[in-house]
Structures are given as structure tokens and as C-alpha cells.
């Protein structure tokens, strides 16, 4: 999903910066508040950020496409802290990769933050709320949130590129081309990532259910039920 330095025309770089800026500014504000007022949730915030760091560094071969790509790792923090805080965490990772690995770029940062940190987590969060509303099993819900956030990130990248760099034949043809490159590759990785984060969530319930209750991810009754089901 990384659009490399210089691969977006300047006007599009500015456009995506402007789109992402309000989310980032609001995100930093919310993050500050979270850090100040809910200090006991800090450790899980660090763990959520660390999963973005870890998973977005793993370039995995995607068996269906014969190419490599990486998961986004944004699912866990989307569920625990919501999409707004997730966009700030993603921004940190993207800056790190842009500066040290020349992976992504500073001019394309706005577009990359939008796909990985904003659009993916926002749709993931919508899935999460919907899952909660229909009483979906929390582990299935987390699997779906993670996979959707991952996959949608790559679909947005395809849209960003198709809009900015139309190949011969216009937007739809370009979108199909980039969709084939990014999104098809991503399907198996999204599934793998979803299963991993669902498993990790089990460990979080077992070790810090108190924070999950505080974050309103689970109710005490749900925690008791989950603990019992894995006893």
C-alpha cells in the first residue's frame, strides 16, 4: 500500500495531506487525552502500536498472486482505541518507513496515512460496531475487523493511484490494474492477519480484561463467559 516517494503528482500529494490532516490533528488531541486521563490503558496502547510496527514490517508472499505484500496490523488498535487514535499510530510507522527504508515517502505520506491509518480502520470500525450490534462472537468480529481494515487499505491505495495516474483507458481500467496488483495479493494476508489478531485478543482478555472493560470493548459478563470458554 506504500505509494513511493515522487509517485504521486504534487497536486495529489497536497490533496491527500489536506484530507488526512483533520484526522491526524483530532487524533493527536484524542491520543493526548487518552494518555493523560487513562494511564492504565497505556500498556495496551503500546502493544497495539507495536503490532502495527511488527506486522507492517513483514513482507509475506501471497500465494494467490505470486507477489509479496505486508499486513497493516491496524485491526487491534481499531477495536481497542478506535480509528482516530489508530491513524496517529499508523502515521508514526509510516514516517519511520519513509525516512529510514525509503519505503513510502514524505510527499506521499498524506495518501499513505489515508489508506492505512484512516480509511481501513474507519471501515474496520464500522464492521466492529455492526458486529457488536448483531451480537457477533467477539473473536469472529475481530477477525473481520482486522481483515477488512487490511484489505480496504489496499483498495484505497488502488483508488488513489488510479485517480492520480490514469493508465491508458481512464480511471476504471487503471483501478482494475492497481486493484489486481494490490488487493488480490492482499486477500490471503488479510485472512492470516485476522486470525492472528483474534488469537492475540484471547491473550489480552486473559491478561488484562480490566482494561478491555474500561475501554468498553467487553462487559464483565462477556469477560467471564470468554474466560470460562477457554478454561
Amino acid at each position: 500500500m506504500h505509494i513511493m516517494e515522487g509517485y504521486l503528482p504534487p497536486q495529489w500529494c497536497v490533496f491527500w495531506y489536506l484530507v488526512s490532516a483533520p484526522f491526524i490533528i483530532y487524533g493527536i488531541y484524542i491520543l493526548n487525552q487518552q494518555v493523560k486521563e487513562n494511564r492504565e490503558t497505556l500498556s495496551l496502547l503500546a502493544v497495539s502500536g507495536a503490532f502495527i510496527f511488527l506486522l507492517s514490517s513483514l513482507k509475506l508472499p501471497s500465494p494467490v498472486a505470486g507477489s509479496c505484500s505486508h499486513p497493516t496490523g491496524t485491526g487491534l488498535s481499531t477495536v481497542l482505541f478506535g480509528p482516530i487514535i489508530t491513524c496517529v499510530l499508523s502515521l508514526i510507522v509510516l514516517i519511520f518507513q519513509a525516512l529510514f527504508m525509503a519505503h513510502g515517502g514524505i510527499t506521499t505520506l498524506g495518501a499513505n496515512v489515508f489508506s492505512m491509518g484512516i480509511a481501513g480502520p474507519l471501515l474496520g470500525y464500522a464492521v466492529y460496531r455492526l458486529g457488536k450490534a448483531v451480537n457477533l462472537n467477539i473473536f469472529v468480529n475481530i477477525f473481520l475487523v482486522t481483515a477488512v481494515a487490511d484489505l480496504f487499505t489496499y483498495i484505497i491505495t488502488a483508488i488513489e493511484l488510479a485517480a492520480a495516474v490514469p493508465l491508458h483507458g481512464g480511471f476504471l481500467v487503471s483501478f482494475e490494474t492497481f486493484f489486481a496488483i494490490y488487493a488480490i495479493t492482499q486477500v490471503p494476508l488479510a485472512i492470516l492477519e485476522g486470525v492472528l489478531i483474534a488469537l492475540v485478543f484471547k491473550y489480552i482478555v486473559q491478561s488484562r480484561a480490566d482494561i478491555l472493560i474500561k475501554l468498553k470493548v467487553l462487559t464483565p459478563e462477556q469477560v467471564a463467559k470468554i474466560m470460562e470458554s477457554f478454561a
Partner: protein
Amino acid sequence: MNFKTLRKYKLEIIFAVVVIVFAAVFLIQNSNIQANAKPGQETWQGSDDMGSATIEATGYHPWIQPLWTPPSTEVESLLFSVQSGLGAFVIGYFFGFYRGKRDSAKPA
């Protein structure tokens, strides 16, 4: 393994199965791809690089270069490993911390 253990480690088992299927499909695909690859053809490239190559094929040239680019793929993979290491360190630190706290809270 009895039913209770299966239930307890349900998610671990699902994860292990998914990883094994993933790896198996990769191995099968890889042997197909290697058998059909022309000599010197690069396989399993990154989708990000394929995206960039597709853009360049239209005659587009990047208008700005990164400030710093890792001098080789070795150095680049080192930096990616540092990134994973940082993430894994923080995850391991806190899960270990939680575990230690829980264990020491139990009466001896």
C-alpha cells in the same frame, strides 16, 4: 488430546491450520512459478514495487527522490528487521509484565 484441551486451544489450532495451509499453498504455487519462470525473471516481487513499475510504464517519472535510500537490499532488510524487532520487543515486554503481575498476585 481430550475435548476440553481442544476447546481451550481452539484459536491456537485454527491459527496453526491457517499458517500451514498458507505455507502449503505457497510451496505449491512457488514450484509452479519457478517451473514457468524465464531465466533471470524476478519472482515474488513486492506489490508496492509492481505498483511503481506500472506507473513508470506510462512514462511517468517520479518528481522527487527519497532523502535516503538503503544502499542494498541487505541493508533494507536489516532495517525492516529492526522495525519488527522493536514491535516484538514491546509486545513481549508487556505480555511478560502482565503474566508476572498475575502470577505474583496469586497467593504462594
